[in-house]
Structure formats: C-alpha cells, structure tokens
C-alpha cells in the first residue's frame, strides 16, 4: 500500500494548566488520499483535539503532544515557524464549526480568501482576488462577485459556511478537516453543505476528516467511521461495518439513542451516566461505569485493541472473545 495521507500513531494529548486534562489517550488512525473519515463522539471525547493536532492549533505552552502525527510523511509535531505556516492552509486546511466566529469580522470575505492565496502561492493581491472569486463560485455561493466585498455579518449562516469552505479549498489542500461544520446551521442548509463538501472532496481528491456528534451526518459523508470516547477510538471500520454491525457497547448505545428509524411513541434509549472526567489517563475501560455488558475485568485493565479485519478495530474485551488481539 502507498504511503497514507494521514498517519497518526499512539497520539496522546495532555493539557496542563490549573488542572491537567488527558484529552487524547492513544489514538491511532490512518487516512488514504481521497478518503473520508468521520470521527464520531460526544462533547469532550477528544475528537476536536485530535483534529486540531493535525494543524498544531492547540495552545503551544499548555499542550503536550506525544506520539507520531504524519501528514504525507511529514512529522507535524516537529514543524515550526514558516514550515508550520506552509503546512497550515497549504497542505491541510480546516473548516470551523461557527464561521461567524472563525472569520475576521472587519475584513471582507474576498480579502480573507485572497490573503491565504497570497500567503501560500506568493501571488499579487489582484490575482488573489481572482482566485477568491473562483473559490466562491466553486462553492456555489449566490452572486459571488458581490460576496467578495461582503463582510461576514452581512451574509446568512449557510452563505458564511460556504465562504468558509471557499477559504479552506482556495489553496487546494490535500487534506480537509471539518470540525462540526453543520452543527450551527439549519437542517435544510446542513444537507446542502454536506453534499457540497462531499462533491468538493471527490472533485479535488482531497482526504477529509469530519468531526461530528451526529450519526446522520457521518452516514451522509463518510467512507469510514471512528467512534471516540474519553480520548480513545473505541471502534473503527467502514461506514457499513460500524453502522450495521457495531461491536463496541458504546457504539451500540449511540446508534440506539439515535432518532432516525425510531417508531412514534417509542421511548428513545439513552446511555445512562456521563463521560468520565479526564483528570487522569484512563487505566481501565473508561466506558465501564456506563456499560450494560460490563464484566469484572473491564474495571481492572485497559481493554485491548482487537483487530476484526483490515481497518476494522474495536477496543473492548468482548471483541477479544470473537477475534485474536491485534
């Protein structure tokens, strides 16, 4: 197999400060060029942190990153200064959850996109604007010439997110990171944005990592799914494998708690309890306190990562019973 676009090995991310938080505890994942991976998980599961590590956007001073993070073979953890800035936006770019907050309020959309192009390709301001217009046209924003001179607050939420996507793809990155890009949008706009992302990803052959807490969204865009809990990937596999044959009790719980396909009048099942505080790195299965199929051993050891097939892993003692450990 060729070199993967993204190769994360045993990633640990710890925040130091008033209190220590072990946000990511041993995440490994790979992504091939042109492939879409969804990271699914609830708030605080470490999915956004994993994403930001790929761009090194976490506060330098308070963050400790251990493990290997490679994008196109380049070790992201060792980048600094100009090479880091070249990596950001040039090789990997990111779409944020709320474009209202992630765009500079006092610069026009055109200026903000042109600026990125000028930075990465060394072109003139005029050429940057041409590229900005192209990008805006590409994301099918209505009357793109006018949007070039619009400020973020002058556009609707859906248009702002399109502008954000235009900014992200303007320099033709190899990897697109999307941090819950549809969460702040109306349901009708959500699906348009998802289809647009899927289309752009296929057209440009970009790899895409899509972080979401919405299974419906993950189903819409992904080739593969990774489910995160307490800073670990508890289950990963192809979309179909994870959705139709979930192995980890947490994945099953998530699927059962989902609204899609529930009959009217039927009570939705919820996962009892709350995710653990991550003041310390987990030493046993972090899901054990909420797990319906918990056995004694779950509270004593970290469950092994069990390989069920190529690109199909589950972190659960029960899975170990059906397959040999990886």
């Amino acid at each position: 197999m060729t070199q993967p676009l993204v190769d994360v090995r045993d990633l640990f991310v710890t925040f130091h400060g008033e209190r220590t938080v072990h946000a990511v505890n041993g995440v490994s994942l790979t992504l091939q060029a042109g492939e879409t991976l969804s990271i699914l998980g609830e708030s605080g599961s470490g999915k956004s942190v994993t994403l930001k590590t790929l761009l090194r956007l976490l506060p330098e001073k308070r963050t400790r990153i251990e493990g290997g993070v490679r994008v196109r073979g380049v070790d992201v953890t060792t980048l600094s200064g100009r090479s880091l800035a070249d990596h950001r936006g040039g090789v990997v770019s990111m779409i944020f959850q709320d474009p209202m907050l992630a765009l500079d309020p006092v610069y026009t959309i055109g200026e903000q996109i042109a600026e990125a192009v000028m930075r990465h390709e060394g072109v003139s301001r005029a050429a940057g604007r041409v590229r900005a217009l192209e990008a805006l046209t590409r994301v099918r924003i209505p009357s793109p010439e006018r949007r070039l001179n619009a400020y973020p607050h002058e556009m609707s939420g859906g248009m702002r997110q399109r502008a954000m996507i235009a900014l992200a793809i303007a320099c033709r990155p190899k990897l697109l990171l999307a941090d819950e890009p549809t969460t702040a949008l109306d349901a009708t706009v959500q699906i348009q944005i998802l289809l647009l992302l899927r289309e752009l990803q296929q057209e440009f052959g970009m790899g895409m990592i899509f972080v979401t807490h919405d299974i419906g969204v993950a189903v819409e865009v992904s080739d593969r799914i990774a489910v995160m809990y307490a800073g670990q990937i508890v289950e990963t596999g192809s979309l179909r494998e994870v959705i139709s044959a979930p192995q980890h009790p947490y994945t099953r719980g998530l699927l059962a708690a989902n609204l899609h396909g529930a009959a009217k009048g039927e009570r939705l099942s919820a996962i009892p309890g709350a995710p653990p505080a991550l003041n310390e790195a987990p030493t046993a299965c972090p899901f054990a306190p909420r797990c319906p199929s918990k056995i004694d051993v779950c509270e004593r050891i970290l469950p092994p990562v069990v390989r069920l097939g190529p690109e199909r892993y589950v972190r659960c003692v029960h899975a170990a019973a059906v397959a040999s450990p990886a």
Partner: protein
Amino acid sequence: MLKYLGARLLYTLPVAVGVSIVCFMLVHIAPGDPLTSVLPPDASAQLQQEMRVIYGFDKPLPVQYGMWLLKTLQGDLGTSIATGRPVAAELGRALSNTLMLAALATFIGFAFGSLFGFVAGYFRDTWIDKAASLVSIIGVSVPHYWLGMVLVIIFSVQLNLLPATGAGPGGSGEWRWDWAHIQHLILPAVTMSVIPMGIVARTVRALVADILSQEFVTGLRAKGLLDFGVFRHVVKNAAPTALAVMGLQLGYLLGGSILIETVFSWPGTGFLLGQAIFQRDLPLLQGTILVLAMIFVALNLMVDIVQSLIDPRVQRS
C-alpha cells in the same frame, strides 16, 4: 453611509442646543445680577434700570436666550470684563495654544500607549505585560501637576535644558514654529501625554487580549498566516475602539488642563478658564465653556464618523 451620517448629525443638534442653554443659564444661575459686576456699587436705581433695558435684561428669559444665541452664532461672544477685549479673540488665541499642546500630547500618548498596550496584550501574563501595565498604571495615577513640577525641576532647574513656563521667549508673543518656541511646548506636552498614554495603553491591552482569544485568530493561523499577518488583523480589529478612545482623550485635553497649563503658565483654554473663574469674568467664562463644550460635541461626532468608516459593523446597524 450618507443616511448614517445624516442621522448622526441630527442627533448632535439637540445636544448642541442643550449645551447652549446650560451656558446661557450660567449667567443667571450665578448669584446677583450680571450688571452688578459692571456697574459701580453706588449706581442709581434709575441707571440700573436703563442699563437693564439697554442689555435686554428686562425681557423674558426665552427672548434673552434667542437674542444671545443669535449673537453667538454670528461669532459675537461679548466682551471680557477683565481685559475689555472681545471674548472671541481671547478664546481664539487660547484655543490655538491649547490645540497645539493637546494634539502633541495626544499624539505622544497614543503612540506610547498603543505600543505599551500592544506589547502587554500580546505577551499577556508575562513579565513584559506586568512592566508595561505598571508604566500605564503610574501614568493614570500620578498627579499631573506634580509630575509637571518634577519635570521642571529636572529639565529646567537642574539640567537647564528646557524653559519652565510660557509659550515663547519674552512673554506673550506670536507663536512661531522655531526652536525658541517649540522648546516651550515640550515639557507641558510630555506632562499632559501621560494621561492619554495610560488610558490608551490599558484600553489597547484589554482589546488585544480579547481579540487574541477569539476564534478567528485560530482561523487566521489555520490558513497559514505568519505572525505579522495575524498582527495586521489584530490591529484592524483594535483600531476602531482605540481611535475612539484617542478622540475622546483629545477632547478632554482640548478642554485644557487648568492644572497643567497653570503649572507651565501655558496661555491655553485651561489657563483662560482659571482666569475667568478667579476674576469672575462672566462673559469670558460663558464663552469659554460654550466653545469647549461645542468642541467636545463636534469631536464625538467626528470619532463616530471615523469609527463607522473603519468598522463596517457600526454604520449598518
């Protein structure tokens, strides 16, 4: 944009009218008849009555106000009781002196205040921040007349580098842009600049710290901007508020600091105001206050307009 300008201009009108009414009423609030200070104490009742009619003090207040306003709008602010010269002329000279002082002080204050504020905001919670904040806190807290005196002692008395008082060699001459005159400007301007410097530094520090904590800064880094690129965005985001604060400070300083202008015998509006108060020179006091208040109103207007030009969010809301 034009609509915003028009609306903003309209808002100014009632403020200006209110200010003029307050200034007009000053004369009537002050104890005693305005004429008593002009007429000799032994003037006959008949003479007093005649003078009242001549000056229009026998008419009802609104009519008097109307007449006064008409005269004022034509630039006639009356005659100073103390000097016998027209108030407008006295004010004009004092204003140009104060304007010079205030502009220079604001410029110095804004330059250093922004610098300290930016550095402090960028390196928040480091020793650099603490040092810069200390300087700005000293700036706002130190009594300025005291600082003025200290500067005079150091630079005039001890080092004999700069003159201590006045606005030019040989007393009150015409202002000229030569070193002999400019050296008189330095000490009062530096003393005065400490006020806007402290305030601007504290404002800019808070602004920069707030801007840097916003998500769009992460967005800027995520698209690969280098530190200088991010800095440009921070400046443009901080500029409207910083400029507004600077404008207001210029307004305060234009009022002339009575204390600083007295310490340096700088013939500006503050000095004039002090004189008018101590000599009970009502026309001069009235005229000075009116003009200073109007300047402040105009300045607020200007700040708002400039702000709307820089910050796209202001004009359209």
